[in-house]
């Protein structure tokens, strides 16, 4: 019973944050409601027994990625979005379509699926076991993601650097060398 209460409280907070992200017009408000969504999702992961995923969710998502978002919003001095004709058309067709689709999916899941219950902390895996899986069974994908992150870092630095900065630095390198 307590499990259900905690689940529904944080599930409602999560859904409310997601809806608030859509309603708010200033990007900084949307970013803060996304932090709320991620925080309550971390609680849901804890309820399922996935401590590792909950910790990574808070550290990587609510910490690193959202700080990046807020940095960019502040850096670009993003103001309130202005509604154009295209956005009204998208609203007219998008909101009813998504509502119908999600109600349909929810109905199928609640009525037709023969899935069972999930107990508190149903996942048997402490972080030690996940570490073993990550560095043993999934070693190749893990190494591939490290290459991916390296490429992403280089791409971000090149894209975000001022145009001409790369040329200037190479020229100065030539002069020095």
């Amino acid at each position, binding site marked *: 019973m307590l*499990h259900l209460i905690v689940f529904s409280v944080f599930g409602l907070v999560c*859904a409310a944050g*997601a809806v608030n*992200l859509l309603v708010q017009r200033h*990007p900084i408000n949307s*970013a803060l409601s*996304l932090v709320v*969504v991620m925080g309550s*999702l971390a609680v849901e*992961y804890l309820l*399922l027994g*996935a401590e*590792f*995923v909950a910790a*990574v969710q808070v550290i990587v*998502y609510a910490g*690193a*990625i959202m700080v990046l*978002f807020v940095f*960019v*919003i502040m*850096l*670009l001095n993003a103001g309130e*979005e*202005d509604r*154009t004709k*295209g*956005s009204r058309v*998208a*609203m007219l067709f*998008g909101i009813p379509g*998504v*509502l119908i*689709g999600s109600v349909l*999916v*929810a109905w199928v*899941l*609640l009525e037709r*699926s023969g*899935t*069972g*219950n*999930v107990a508190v902390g149903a*996942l048997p*895996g402490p972080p030690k076991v*996940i570490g073993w*899986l*990550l560095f043993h*069974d*999934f070693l190749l994908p893990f190494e591939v*993601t490290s290459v*991916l*992150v390296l*490429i992403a870092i280089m*791409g*971000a*630095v090149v*894209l*975000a650097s*001022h145009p001409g900065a790369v040329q200037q630095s190479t020229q100065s390198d030539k002069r020095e060398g």
Partner: protein
Amino acid sequence: MVPLSYYLVLSGILFACGVTGFLIKRNIITIFMSIELMLNGVNLSFVAFAAQWHALSGQVFVFFVMVVAAAESAVGLAIIIAVYRTRETLNVDRVNLLKL
């Protein structure tokens, strides 16, 4: 005990909110945040199914999804900065040329 379908419905709600935001928002940063919301919804269903079937590899996949999302957001935000530098706008309706 909470039925697995409740977790799946919550993840469906998050994904639907992400799709709606992707469609109706015109600020490029908010569109990007909607994508993150969709990824979060998918992660929740991964973890719920992992708990249902006692399969730990679901959690490892969530870890990989998070790594890819982090890389994607770093590159995407850098692209947003580059677009803003040339266009002076964040509205996607005014960014209608591939040319910089």
